């Protein structure tokens, strides 16, 4: 505050001291070195030039200045091609990388196309697999290699307690064969005799005194289980020739012949699931 008051007073009295100006203003107005003015003021008192030694100094300084200007001009000139080369190299790199990027993007597109194709193919082959597995299961059921379960009937047959004639009252292998065929005829999908699955290779025959199924001896009573429609199978069985003959056997020889519908029948698979000798002709 007091300083400003002083300044105003100085202004009023025709100030000798310069008032404070801003830094920028100072930079822009006081361009001439104060020294020149000071020295000139002093020299004004005693007229005469500065010693000749300084003149040589001034000229050599100017020489030095020229040298510097020339050198930096030269250096900039020399640097220019270098900078241009570097720039060109960078541009080339950028373009190269652009090309590389384009290539890789194209590659990516073709690869994702390929992935899509392969996925489609995989889906198709998975569907094929499922179909084939279904077919295999169906074939296995038909061939008797796969254990199956479902509704069906159980036929229990037994020898008569007494013997009639030479063979009356005893169930023969032909009787069982007849019964099994009758069940097939009645719409059975799988048949087992005493837990032995009947397949295309299963034989029912006499060996000595016992009936063998699949070369294993059985003892009466025999239980023949079949999977099929439990409502229609018993009636259809009785309508077949086998049914008629068995009814005769029951009536004439006292052989037990019971047909019962069952909610659930479980029939095991035949363990022998491959042929030992036969080979498909196409495969050989």
């Amino acid at each position, binding site marked *: 505050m007091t300083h400003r008051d002083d300044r105003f007073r100085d202004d009023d009295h025709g100030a000798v001291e310069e008032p404070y100006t801003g830094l920028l203003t100072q930079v822009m107005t006081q361009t001439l*070195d104060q020294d020149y003015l000071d020295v000139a003021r002093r020299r004004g008192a005693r007229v005469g030039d500065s010693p000749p030694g300084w003149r040589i100094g001034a*000229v050599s300084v*100017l020489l030095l200045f020229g040298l510097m200007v*020339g050198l930096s001009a030269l250096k900039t000139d020399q640097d220019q091609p270098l900078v241009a080369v570097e720039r060109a190299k960078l541009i080339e790199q950028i373009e190269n990388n652009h090309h590389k990027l384009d290539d890789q993007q194209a590659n990516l597109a073709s690869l994702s196309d390929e992935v899509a194709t392969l996925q489609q193919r995989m889906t198709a082959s998975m569907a094929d697999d499922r179909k084939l597995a279904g077919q295999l299961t169906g074939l296995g059921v038909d061939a008797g290699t796969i254990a199956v379960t479902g509704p069906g009937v159980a036929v229990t047959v037994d020898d008569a307690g007494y013997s009639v004639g030479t063979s009356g009252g005893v169930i023969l292998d032909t009787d069982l064969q007849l019964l099994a065929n009758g069940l097939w005829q009645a719409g059975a999908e799988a048949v087992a005799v005493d837990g032995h699955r009947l397949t295309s290779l299963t034989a029912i025959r006499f060996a000595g005194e016992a009936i063998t199924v699949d070369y294993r001896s059985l003892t009466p009573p025999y239980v023949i289980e079949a999977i099929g429609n439990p409502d229609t199978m018993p009636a259809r069985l009785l309508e077949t020739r086998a049914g008629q003959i068995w009814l005769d056997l029951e009536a004439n020889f006292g052989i037990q012949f019971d047909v019962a519908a069952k909610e659930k029948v479980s029939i095991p698979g035949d363990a022998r699931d491959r042929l030992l000798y036969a080979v498909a002709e196409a495969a050989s």
Partner: protein
Amino acid sequence: MIAVFGLALGVLAGLLLEPSIPIALQPYLPIAVVAALDAVFGGLRAHLDGVFDDKVFVISFVSNVLIAALIVYLGDQLGVGGQLSTGVIVVLGIRIFSNVAAIRRHVFHA
């Protein structure tokens, strides 16, 4: 006359002889040139004002160049070399413009 001759000789020597500058000093050459330019235009203006003095010119030239280089060097060591260079160039540029304007007034009386 001698001054102009010295200047031309210096430029020629710089261009023709191509003396190698130490690598360490190379970054300070442009800023030194700008500082020297300020001193030279100051001297020219003083000459036109009639107050030129060889001693003052030599000292102002040398100190200008040294201080400018020193400031930039200091800035480099502090990690603000670019900014300090810009500051020095702005101040010196303003001074050069003003000096040139004064010289123009002397030469063209306008």
